């Protein structure tokens, strides 16, 4: 099967005029958001309020060290803008590794490799665990945004409102090619 570029999505803080004062050593890069309006679906998560956290506290040093054993992999995380351009070393989607491991398993596993390739990691600032989404299950950015809202909306009181410049969140991805981080939405969905 033709190799599908692997990507990791990260919901990261938008560096824009909206950002309040205070220094932050957070490893992030400001990228242009694709301006698509998405209905605020936050109301559907009212019952998850008990899982919400107060996001108004000061930003802290990236939490990578908290639960990433291998700093050198840095999968899914960004470099400060001043260092932008140095590709993230060690970016390998888990699916790529598992695809290699499964090569000897015969035809029974072949049908699964297609699914395996399409699942990418999604991480959101402040959330200690990541999620997986099947990119090929979606037909457009809107559909993707809705799933991400379903997954992460409860962590952000007003809904994450992806692609809304005013939301304060940016969705970025890292492709296999060159390892550069880009804003989701810059290129056609296909």
């Amino acid at each position, binding site marked *: 099967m033709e190799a599908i570029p692997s990507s990791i999505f990260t919901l990261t803080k938008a560096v824009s005029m909206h950002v309040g004062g205070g220094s932050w050593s957070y490893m992030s890069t400001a990228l242009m958001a694709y301006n698509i309006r998405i209905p605020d679906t936050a109301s559907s998560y009212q019952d998850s309020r008990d899982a919400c956290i107060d*996001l108004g*506290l000061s930003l802290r040093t990236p939490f990578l060290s908290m639960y990433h054993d291998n700093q050198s992999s840095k999968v899914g995380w960004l470099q400060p803008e001043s260092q932008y351009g140095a590709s993230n070393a060690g970016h390998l989607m888990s699916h790529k590794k598992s695809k290699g491991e499964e090569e000897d398993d015969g035809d029974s596993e072949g049908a699964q490799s297609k699914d395996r390739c399409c699942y990418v990691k999604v991480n959101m600032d402040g959330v200690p665990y990541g999620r997986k989404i099947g990119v090929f299950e979606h037909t457009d950015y809107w559909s993707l945004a809705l799933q991400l809202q379903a997954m992460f909306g409860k962590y952000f009181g007003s809904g994450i409102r992806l692609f809304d410049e005013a939301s304060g969140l940016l969705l970025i991805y890292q492709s296999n090619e060159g390892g550069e981080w880009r804003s989701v939405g810059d290129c056609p969905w296909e």
Partner: protein
Amino acid sequence: MADMDDCLSSIEEPNKEQVFRSTKVFMKGQAIGRAVNLNILNSYDQLKDALEDKFQIWGELQNCNHKWVLLYIDHDGEMMIVGDDPWPEFRNIAKKILIYSREEVNRMMMPVDFGF
């Protein structure tokens, strides 16, 4: 010698499914972990059943009271939530399984200033 050869040749190759793929499972707060053979399980529901048995939390993983959060560590060392991957994929990529209480997960949340 011939008897030994006959004996060895009569031993069947273990079915791949029967090969024990030991995956460690830890519950936050408990010093001793358990191991689960993911190869004999066919679904996330079966995994939850097995974990409920091992940790004596019957019914608490299957129902949706959100008392526990099932997480796993993958080969990249990243913590991911259990359930998003197709089951066959999960079996291959889960290096360790963690059972956290909801309160524990909330404590792990890192405050992020989104500028509001």
